[in-house]
């Protein structure tokens, strides 16, 4: 399973400038890519293109070699699961279990109960499975959106700021979830300002600035690109920067 962006541009209706401009990159299967950049750089737009929630103004997006042009969001949902920054944007069932089961039911997956149980266990939500999503803490609701994406069994998962609002124990949980998904062979695309949380999992960093792609490569390559670090507001963890200085 792979993703290809070929000269993709997005301009929202009545917007004075492009949200994404001529962006091209390719991600192979089983990669863990971190998408970084300032607010408004185009990160969320890029993720929303993956499952057809928005369509490019120009250019081509291909998932597993097939163009997504003309393919409805309902079919793309079998390939790509996306979670948003704010859990309130995607929770609507009356129990946690039903919320997690919603996606697999829509996709008419076999063994739905097994997928739901696995996703709940992975995200530490088994004990609250019968509660209303809005009785959960914000952090638990965030984990619930991740469980809902995991249960859909899609080969590609995209998460928009999954660690925002999480405290330290939940951040550890999130790290374990992503490590498990990576070991299972899923492709993960994660938007985050926090390089420290995900650096050990990351194979690729894609950096956007003002809608343009300014870096596509390994984390170590980015650490040498000081100009891009400044433009994107990305900062490596303190210990990483110390090692980088000593190894220069």
């Amino acid at each position, binding site marked *: 399973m792979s993703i290809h962006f070929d000269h993709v541009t997005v301009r929202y209706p009545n917007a004075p400038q492009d949200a994404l401009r001529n962006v091209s990159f390719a991600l192979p299967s089983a990669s863990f890519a971190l998408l970084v950049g300032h607010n408004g750089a185009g990160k969320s737009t890029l993720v929303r293109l993956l499952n057809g929630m928005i369509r490019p103004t120009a250019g081509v997006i291909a998932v597993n070699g097939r163009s997504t042009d003309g393919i409805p969001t309902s079919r793309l949902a079998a390939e790509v699961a996306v979670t948003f920054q704010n859990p309130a944007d995607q929770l609507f069932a009356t129990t946690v279990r039903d919320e997690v089961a919603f996606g697999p039911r829509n996709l008419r997956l076999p063994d739905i109960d097994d997928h739901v149980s696995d996703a709940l266990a992975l995200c530490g939500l088994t004990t609250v499975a019968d509660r209303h999503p809005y009785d959960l803490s914000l952090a638990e609701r965030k984990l619930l959106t991740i469980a809902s994406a995991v249960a859909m069994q899609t080969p590609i998962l995209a998460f928009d700021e999954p660690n925002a609002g999480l405290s330290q124990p939940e951040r550890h949980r999130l790290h374990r979830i992503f490590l498990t998904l990576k070991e299972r062979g899923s492709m993960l695309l994660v938007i985050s300002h926090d390089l*420290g949380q995900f650096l050990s999992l990351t194979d690729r960093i894609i950096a956007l600035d003002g809608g343009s792609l300014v870096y596509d490569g390994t984390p170590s390559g980015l650490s040498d690109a000081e100009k891009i670090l400044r433009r994107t507001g990305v900062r490596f963890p*303190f210990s990483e920067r110390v090692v980088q200085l000593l190894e220069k």
Partner: protein
Amino acid sequence: MIACRSLHVAYGTGQPDVLCGPSFTVPSGSICALLGPTGAGKSTLLHTLSGTLGMFHHAAQCSGSVIVNEETFVPVPRRVLFPAVGMLMQEPHLQFSGMAETVEGELKWTLDNLGIVGGAAQKQISVALDRFGCSALRARTLRSLSGGELHRIAFASVLVARPSLLLLDEPVASLDQNARAQVARLLDSLRGEATILFTDSDPDLAMRLADRIIVLDSGTLRLDASRKTFLDTVDAFGDILTVTTWPRVRERFAASGPSSPTARRLRRTLGQT
């Protein structure tokens, strides 16, 4: 200064000890890091030192003693030691009084309780917000703030009272790297002005600025030492702390010759000389 001696704390009669006798001293004007994994007893220790333990554990059983500035409490303070001690809790919403709608109102409420009003209060509020780059949030409602903004305002609401002792429970755990650097600069600017004890499970902030590093595991002290000793023995804590690349830093220091200016500068910065 702030210190404890043979401190034992259990959440109730017959319950196991959460703190199993740690003793240490944080000298006046110094910065001390309290490192340990989740469940080590770090938050309980800070609550015990600040007198807020009873707010969370009514039936707590304690023995030992706590020394805050010149005063000794046996076994522990039973009242909140405010404003001498400013305590930043992990959850910003626990920090707020619930009495004010806006950022300014929240900080003003703290100062009202200390009898600081009028122009003096306005000035202290301006200084505290400015320190966190939050002046633009002054009129905003607390409910409208993002997680990162709430965290900074919670911190400002502690600092506005100008406590001489700061107990900070995971002050950077939920912040990104840029915000962490900002907090590090702020703590460094308070060095000498306040006595600071902060908790973390990641040694980055501690290695950056702590005069002393204490490692707590299952309520027991495993280390109370300088940054140099901590780095020399960092591998021993790989099972309980996120030591990340610190072992590599130690190896690089060992491998770099005395003539390397970068290594010399970093040794000084990291308290390795």
